[in-house]
């Protein structure tokens, strides 16, 4: 419990970075990371939900009876997911079209529920915010990185610009679902190699 706020924040960026270390929330990780833009958009949406639900769960933790806590978490999370969905439709419609069904699915992203249950329900407001923010930023970075790798290899483009020139034959495997698994596995492998040193 002696961790500082900064530590709560930074643990989400490397030590416990969600998709790689906790291997949580893989559905959107594999589903939407065909481009970096999609990955980051999804990551930001999840971060928003994560921070807001952590705040509310932390504030209400004294009032929520332990027996119905999961139901309460789901109500809180679902509310914020709907907020994100409506706001995204109103202000970033092209992104909403691309992310489509994955936005409502943030409700069942076990990362969000996991942090509410494992952290926010047991901790004060400030550490909970730091935890949510850290986890969210880590999640966004992971999705962005995975999206960037898949976009560059799979289409030869990066943010709409050609990287390798016209002679590059796109490695289409990378933008399909199996490519997501392979790419995630390789990145996990790379992180473990770096981490074990």
């Amino acid at each position, binding site marked *: 419990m002696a961790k500082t706020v900064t530590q709560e924040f930074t643990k989400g960026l490397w030590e416990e970075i969600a998709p790689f270390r906790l291997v949580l929330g893989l559905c959107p990780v594999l589903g939407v990371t065909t481009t970096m833009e999609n990955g980051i958009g999804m990551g930001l949406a999840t971060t928003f939900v994560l921070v807001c639900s952590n705040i509310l769960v932390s504030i209400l933790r004294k009032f929520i*009876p332990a*027996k119905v806590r999961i139901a309460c978490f789901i109500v809180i999370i679902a509310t914020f997911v709907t907020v994100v969905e409506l*706001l995204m439709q109103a202000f970033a419609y092209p992104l909403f079209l691309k992310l489509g069904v994955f936005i409502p699915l943030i409700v069942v992203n076990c990362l969000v529920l996991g942090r509410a249950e494992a952290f926010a329900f047991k901790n004060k407001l400030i550490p909970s915010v730091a935890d949510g923010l850290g986890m969210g930023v880590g999640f966004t970075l992971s999705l962005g990185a995975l999206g960037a790798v898949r976009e560059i290899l799979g289409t030869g483009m990066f943010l709409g610009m050609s990287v390798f020139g016209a002679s590059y034959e796109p490695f289409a495997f990378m933008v399909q679902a199996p490519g997501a698994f392979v790419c995630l596995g390789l990145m996990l492998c790379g992180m473990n190699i770096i981490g074990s040193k």
Partner: protein
Amino acid sequence: MTELIKMVVVLVLLSSSSGGLLHWLKTQTSSKIEDQQVKFVKGPALKSIFEGSSNDPTADRFTLKVGETEKNFFVGKFDGKTNCVAFEGFGKGGYGGDIGLMIGVDIDNGSVLGAAVTTHSETPGLGAKAKEDPSFVSQLKGLSIESPILVTNDGGKINAMSGATITSRAVCNAANDAGKIYKEIKSQLTEKVKSF
């Protein structure tokens, strides 16, 4: 017993306040969302139909009741004359569900000015060409919206896309749906369009 009451009270309070919040947000954003939908889903279709029009058809729009539902209609102005209107028809029987077809009609003679597929879930590379390759829907140009539109296999004039007869039929269904709507509200439509 007190624990039970507490659980019920907490859940009820939480759910109802979240319901209230979402209702408020929904009413706040609904008009904005509609604007965005028109701009990004219908916009490209409208642009191709009303090519060379002097106004912005996504802005010049009105709604009319067709049967039970409100439908959006978009007005196109050419050379200062407003005689064109575009609206969406839905065709049953696509390979992956209904197909939405935006169709532009000249209200002076009821001929089709142009058409473009808006929403579909057809097979990429085959049926999906109905949206990507404008040469198929361009066959609708000049036909009368009020008479049935059919593919050649069914005795009509439209050449089906090769490998995608089902999709081609569904697009024709959508055009006929639009024709039905047009016939139903022709007089109101004419009046409304002239007022722009």
